[in-house]
């Protein structure tokens, strides 16, 4: 539900239950978790968390306490983790998969037998019906081999997701059972040579046949994961749609379920990639492929939304997968750092090395906190279908870049050894590079995060402006107080910083995290005022100010990370988990570091920055097509024959 833009929430004196119970089974067959039975008034649940940050609102009930599973679900999850971990330890030879650029048939069959091909498919269709949280947990293990992780994700996170979320009962009953067992493999076919980030510009066409019984599909897709081994494709093509109101004929994207057995489908040879070499990636061509009209996914013309919903739903698991990789690397690299001796000391005694490990650990901590917080918000939302696309995008951007830098640092600790193929670091580095590119490039996602947030803020602020013009005293006072307070760095309190020893209503951070929580609160207030300032400055033109938007996105990503980290550390203290004092230290340190970064970016946004100059340099270079500056040794011709020679002694 989008915000209605109301400032004063209607005090719901009646607690309207959104659904019978906050925990249980969602209509999609996915399990929900809410052991705390977070029972809240309606207005708290109008919009998931992050968008509200843009108006300086921190809805603490959505992120405190940190989501958790009930004991039964947790025990079952632990049971499931064991066999998967053993399989990946004993039966998966990542080095061989990378060299051969192929996953062996027995390994693939083993994954299917374990049930990993239908993790989120509902139980009644033969899948495991796992919730987002449980799926993220298993993703931590499958990520150990990048090629396998991508094959599984391409099959279920995007390949068959469309059928799950947009398919009708017949389509689900027909396709999901075989897809869940892995008898059929799925793929997601959207990208074309001329349409990568710009998904609405695809050119594959589906024309209705004369009989009206099926569509004829023509076109070509590139870089389709599982393209060569898939039996069922979710294909996006342009169809002619007649606008019911204006009678205009327009081209709109429609999603189709296409079986390879329909005919006319050819797959190219597998692409030779830098990383995830075991994953099959190839071009897929459709030539007059007949697709029955029953196989239209959703509505004719509604394909773009289906594509966005599919992609938005799966992104958050990159946080847990990334954390799984980084945690494993920390263990392997620490073994080296504790045994290697140079200058008569072990590597671990040098502060520079200690900093590297701290950096890796902090990033892993933030990544997994964000991932499980997002999964938890989705799984315990009353009603079950919140729009967490912005949160998921934040998790993806942060995790992809953190994994890349962490793997690089781990390799650096090993020095020359890390560079050798005998060690797995170079393979992890190559596999990690794709994270920043696929599932929405980080550049596009930053724009998405910033613009969605700005739009949300803009809608609300328009309302606020109207109230101000009307002379609503309450709103005026509130605005003045906000501005005045944030000028001194104080701003309104959001109620999540615990002032005393008791946690009280549970929607607060534990007192030991006051340091970090206060910094977060300050940033929330800063963002609220900054958004207003930027909208006032640029208005609609903000869409073109990408460098401004990039900073806004980075700030909010950092803030979401801080929130997740504070919430999780609070939970650790309150529950008395082992090593909670280490977690508290990590959380407070992380908040301090990220706060410093944020303040730098706020400074750049508020005042002087180098954006205009940077853009000019970039434009000039791109106009000429190469590096412009003269060579360092270049000189002009010397007419007077005076060489610069030092004076003779």
């Amino acid at each position: 539900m989008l915000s209605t833009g109301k400032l004063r929430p209607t005090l719901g004196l009646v607690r309207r239950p959104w659904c019978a119970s906050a925990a249980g089974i969602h209509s999609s067959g996915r399990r929900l978790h809410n052991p705390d039975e977070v029972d809240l008034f309606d207005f708290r649940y109008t919009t998931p968390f992050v968008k509200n940050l843009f108006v300086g609102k921190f809805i603490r009930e959505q992120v405190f306490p940190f989501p958790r599973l009930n004991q039964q679900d947790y025990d079952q999850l632990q049971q499931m983790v064991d066999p998967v971990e053993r399989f990946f330890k004993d039966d998966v030879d990542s080095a061989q998969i990378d060299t051969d650029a192929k996953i062996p048939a027995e390994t693939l069959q083993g994954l299917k037998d374990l049930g990993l091909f239908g993790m989120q498919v509902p139980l009644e269709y033969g899948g495991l019906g796992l919730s987002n949280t449980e799926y993220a947990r298993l993703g931590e293990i499958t990520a150990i081999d990048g090629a396998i992780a991508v094959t599984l994700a391409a099959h279920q996170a995007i390949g068959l997701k469309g059928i799950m979320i947009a398919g009708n009962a017949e389509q689900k009953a027909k396709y999901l059972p075989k897809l869940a067992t892995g008898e059929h493999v799925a793929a997601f076919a959207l990208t074309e040579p001329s349409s990568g980030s710009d998904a609405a510009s695809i050119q594959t066409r589906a024309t209705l046949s004369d009989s009206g019984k099926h569509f004829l599909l023509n076109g070509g897709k590139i870089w389709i994961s599982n393209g060569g081994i898939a039996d069922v494709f979710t294909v996006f093509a342009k169809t002619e749609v007649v606008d019911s109101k204006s009678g205009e004929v327009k081209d709109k994207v429609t999603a189709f379920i296409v079986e390879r057995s329909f005919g006319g489908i050819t797959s190219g040879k597998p692409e030779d990639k830098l990383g995830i070499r075991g994953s099959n990636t190839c071009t897929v061509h459709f030539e007059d492929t007949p697709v029955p009209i029953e196989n239209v996914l959703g509505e004719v013309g509604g394909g773009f939304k289906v594509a966005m919903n599919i992609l938005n739903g799966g992104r958050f698991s990159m946080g847990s997968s990334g954390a799984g990789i980084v945690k494993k690397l920390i263990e392997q690299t620490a073994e080296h750092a504790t045994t290697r001796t140079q200058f008569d000391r072990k590597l671990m005694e040098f502060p520079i090395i200690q900093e590297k490990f701290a950096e890796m650990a902090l990033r892993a901590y933030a990544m997994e906190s964000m991932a499980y917080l997002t999964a938890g918000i989705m799984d315990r939302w009353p009603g079950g279908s919140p729009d967490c696309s912005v949160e998921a995008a934040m998790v993806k951007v942060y995790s992809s870049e953190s994994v890349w830098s962490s793997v690089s640092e781990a390799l650096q600790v090993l020095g020359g050894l890390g560079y050798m193929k005998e060690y797995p670091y170079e393979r992890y580095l190559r596999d990690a590079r794709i994270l920043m590119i696929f599932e929405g490039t980080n550049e596009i996602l930053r724009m998405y995060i910033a613009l969605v947030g700005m739009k949300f803020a803009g809608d609300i602020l328009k309302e606020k402006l109207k109230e101000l013009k009307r002379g609503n005293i309450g709103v005026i006072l509130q605005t003045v107080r906000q501005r005045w307070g944030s000028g001194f760095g104080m701003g309104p309190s959001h109620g999540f910083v615990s002032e005393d020893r008791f946690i009280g209503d549970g929607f607060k951070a534990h007192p030991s995290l006051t340091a970090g929580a206060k910094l977060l609160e300050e940033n929330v207030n800063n963002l609220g005022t900054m958004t207003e300032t930027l909208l006032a400055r640029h208005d609609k033109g903000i869409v073109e100010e990408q460098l401004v938007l990039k900073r806004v996105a980075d700030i909010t990503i950092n803030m979401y990370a801080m929130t997740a980290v504070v919430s999780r550390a609070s939970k650790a203290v309150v529950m008395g988990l082992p090593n909670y004092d280490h977690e508290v230290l990590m959380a407070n340190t992380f908040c301090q570091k990220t706060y410093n970064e944020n303040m730098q970016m706020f400074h750049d946004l508020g005042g002087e920055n180098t954006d205009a100059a940077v853009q000019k340099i970039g434009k000039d270079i791109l106009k000429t097509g190469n590096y412009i500056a003269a060579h360092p040794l270049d000189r002009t011709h010397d007419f007077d024959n005076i060489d610069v020679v030092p004076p003779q002694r």
Partner: protein
Amino acid sequence: MWPIFDYGRFVSIISSSDVYGVVWMRSLAQLHKMANLRVLVGVKRVIDYAVKIRVKPDNSGVVTDGVKHSMNPFCEIAMEEAVRLKEKKLAKEIIAVSCGPAQAQETIRTALAMGADRGIHVEVTGKEYENMTPLHVSKIMAKLAQDQEANLVILGKQSIDGDNNQTGQMTAALLDWPQATFASEVTKENDHLKVVREIDGGLETVKVTLPAVITADLRLNEPRYATLPNIMKAKKKKIAKHKAADFGVDLTPTLEVVGVEDPPVRQAGQKVESTEELVAKLKDSGVV
């Protein structure tokens, strides 16, 4: 379609010759008799084999709190053998048993996920559990085998924490059943089992009549993974809870653990130049 409730009679109706019918009926009857094993499998929850063991500071035992536990590897092999017998239609029911604290239920659940039909949890906690010995366990197993009318008991040859290698043998003795220990191959022949045993001198093949007790050795089979769908299905299978007293077994300790120590730290060796020096060093250290 002919109803197939009495296969034997169905065949005898369609066969032309009476003799044919009789032969068919007899072999079908034997087939029916073959799927008659009710197997009791003991599974123990132990510290995971990959974990580095640490001795408690007071030397009273090893650290178990917060340490990863899993099913004893030999119990996994025993469980796998039982499941294979069921797949070959030689066993009709598998019951997984574990004696231990509440967490032992996780181990039984894993056994159910591997293919057991139901579980029995004999709850033993705290000091009683720490002092439990194979004698206690085998008394419980023996009583269970009789109560459940099992005709085959399969156990791991030993547990990796106790390393006693006694439970199987004691259970067989209490039941007065034949035993085939350190089994590396089990085949059913008519009404007895042919078991290949791994002994110090090589391999020994024995025949045991049923009912019998078998203990599994390493090379008996390669245990399967408990697949995730099976783990979810196992939730529906039942685990019955009992106490040792239900079987008339007294858990008074018969052994007292006096101390647990780390193995001595390996000392560096010394190089010697000649035999005389070696003898001198040995004399100095008091060895000779």
